[in-house]
């Protein structure tokens, strides 16, 4: 598969040229640090401060752009149901699952609610060969139903994108989508996607449906998670659409034209956020992605450690995607344009880097208030100090304001306290950022499996082991 992607596969995190460049930069920085350590520290602080300011301004721009007009594709219930069954195409639904016997039984119930003619609905459940427990649970619960089970042969890498690629080879549908086993999609979502993709024309090859959570009120983490997703889908993604920038796709509920997806090489099996990478590759190929107004309810991660594991995989994947697409800068600029480049650096690369750096900067701030060491005063030269102060006050206030805005858009005033407590969530993000950075260096292709079904009674949950590539 890495041959299909060529230079844009995450099979190798850093190419030889990237490694040489990084090494050279480190040697140069090291050499200058020996001679003029304060100069190096001041330069690092200046670069970080400028990057923070740029990322902050970029976010504000996205929210502002999202607020000017409607940027989600809307298909009403009447329009969705108006298409005669005979005119609907075969729709393939891929459901990858690994070590999830507890939630597999819910699949029939959730996907069974989809309003789409059964003879035109091809549901393929993708299970790994070594996962006998889930295979048996699936055979028991799907016996006689319309869903097929496809056992993906044991091979490396054992990742979700590899399973999806295997499923795509068997798929016969004109359109393809992915759901997780525990997902509860809007029953009309497939019909809406068909209508929307036909209406938008061939330049649109993908629609990302909105994701929400069915267990928002389980605990503080799920509440934070719900607010974050609301900000993501109602402010940031519409902003990216409005500014015609690449859309890093979410893990499920993205609806593709199958032919174009195959033409692109589908998902990179070595990338741990293959969806975000695919979003960038779609943009590089000149295709457009829309955001569909239709909600799929997922399970919000409710456990601290499980959350860190999931988020660190996302951050690692974002960093991988960023490094992969910066391998050929000239081609990237010509294919993505300056807007795409901004999105790639400030959104895809910037999100995990900001999470990682936040911990260092907060520690520095606390140290300053506790001890006021003279060295810190020297590191922050005046212009960058004031810029940093602006980011600290205005930046943090802006992010909290966005969460408060999401409280409004979700029409959940009871979540206001959670929105104001967001700094606690940022600390978790920093921890995930540090874990992601560590793994990017030492275990780049390790797939940190998220445990699902933590909202279910304890007796029905089994915990999966992670897959290592």
């Amino acid at each position, binding site marked *: 598969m890495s041959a299909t992607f060529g230079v844009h596969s995450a099979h190798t995190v850093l190419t030889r040229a990237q490694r040489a460049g990084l090494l050279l930069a480190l040697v140069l920085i090291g050499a200058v640090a020996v001679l003029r350590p304060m100069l190096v520290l001041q330069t690092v602080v200046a670069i970080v401060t400028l990057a923070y300011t740029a990322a902050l301004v970029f976010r504000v721009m996205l929210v502002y752009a999202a607020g000017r007009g409607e940027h989600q594709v809307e298909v009403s219930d009447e329009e969705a149901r108006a298409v005669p069954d005979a005119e609907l195409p075969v729709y393939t639904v891929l459901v990858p699952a690994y070590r999830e016997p507890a939630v597999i039984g819910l699949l029939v119930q959730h996907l069974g609610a989809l309003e789409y003619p059964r003879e035109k609905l091809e549901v393929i459940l993708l299970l790994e060969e070594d996962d006998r427990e889930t295979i048996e649970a699936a055979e028991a619960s799907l016996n006689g139903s319309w869903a097929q089970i496809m056992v993906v042969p044991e091979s490396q890498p054992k990742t979700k994108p590899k399973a999806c690629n295997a499923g795509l080879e068997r798929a016969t549908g004109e359109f393809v989508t992915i759901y997780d086993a525990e997902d509860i999609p809007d029953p009309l979502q497939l019909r809406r996607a068909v209508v929307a993709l036909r209406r938008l024309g061939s330049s649109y090859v993908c629609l990302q449906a909105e994701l929400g959570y069915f267990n928002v009120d389980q605990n503080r983490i799920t509440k934070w998670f719900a607010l974050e997703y609301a900000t993501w889908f109602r402010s940031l993604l519409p902003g990216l659409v409005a500014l015609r920038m690449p859309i890093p796709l979410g893990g499920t509920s993205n609806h593709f034209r199958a032919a174009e997806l195959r033409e692109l090489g589908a998902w990179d099996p070595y990338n741990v956020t293959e969806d975000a990478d695919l979003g960038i590759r779609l943009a590089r190929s000149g295709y457009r992605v829309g955001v569909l107004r239709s909600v799929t309810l997922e399970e919000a991660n409710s456990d*601290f*450690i499980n959350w860190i*594991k999931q988020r660190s995989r996302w951050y690692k994947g974002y960093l991988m995607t960023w490094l992969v697409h910066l391998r050929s800068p000239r081609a990237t600029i010509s294919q993505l344009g300056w807007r795409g480049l901004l999105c790639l650096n400030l959104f895809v690369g910037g999100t995990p880097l900001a999470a990682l750096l936040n911990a260092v900067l907060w520690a520095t701030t606390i140290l300053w208030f506790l001890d006021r060491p003279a060295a810190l005063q020297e590191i922050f030269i005046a212009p960058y100090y004031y810029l940093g102060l602006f980011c600290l006050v205005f930046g943090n206030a802006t992010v909290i304001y966005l969460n408060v805005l999401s409280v409004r858009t979700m029409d959940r005033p009871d979540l206001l306290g959670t929105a104001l407590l967001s700094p606690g969530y940022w600390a978790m993000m920093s921890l995930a950022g540090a874990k992601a950075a560590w793994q990017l260096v030492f275990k780049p292709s390790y797939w940190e499996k998220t445990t699902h079904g933590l909202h279910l009674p304890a007796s029905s949950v089994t915990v999966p082991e992670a897959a290592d590539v």
Partner: protein
Amino acid sequence: MPLLIPLVAAAALIAGRVRPGQDEPDVHDRQVDGLLAAGCLVSAATLLLLMPSPDRTTWLLPGALAYLAGAAILLVGTRTAARMRWALLLPLVAITGVIPAAVVDATNGALRAVVAVLGRPGGPVDAGGALTTTYRQSALTLTSADLPGIAFLGGTACLLVSALVVFGPRTVALRRAALAVAVLGAVTVGAVMAVLLTGRLLGPTAFRVAEYPVLTDVLLALVVMILVARWSRRAPQPAPRTVRPYLPRARFALVTLVVAAVLMGLESLPAALALTEAAR
């Protein structure tokens, strides 16, 4: 001996929480453990080693807390440490010495009054801030400093914390804690009366042995341990699932932590001594 009661209460709480609960996800991650522990230990080192004078003692408690948290996470894992967090904090109740002297004096005063009333037929007298009994015309005196007021207060604090941990912030916690404190109070009064009775019946030598604080401390620690252990017993689950007790391999971490503790201890020893001196 001031650590005895909190340590015993902590041990009883931990014993009741060694196995994970039914609703606890069996999800662990050594990288998360390592990162959290590194953060805590770096904070501890920064607080203890880098924080300047004049008042270095201010940083001892947060430094100790950060070290304790980091060590616990590294040794038993984040989830287990979180499950036992209050139990691990109990010894700090004694270390911090948060009980003000006025409260200790008032408690000892109350103890004297109760013992004098209850022991009236036998004759201990509350006079001049001390309890006095007689053995063949010679007076045997138990001064205020010899009374176990501070041990009783420490035990009460441990019982309150333990009740909160076991029952949560509910009325039942308050009810159980009140009952337990009453039992502890009765045992404390009984212990003081036993010391006085020993002197009255067996003479000054036995009285000197009986008034060693360690004996009362051990007795109170036993009472606290029995109460907390009874509370900590989990109710039988209707359909228990297989819960894997999680204990990571952490021998290297243990050695590192001991070395770090020794180094930081040596570094902060002058400040600790100053704190002790100030407390006196």
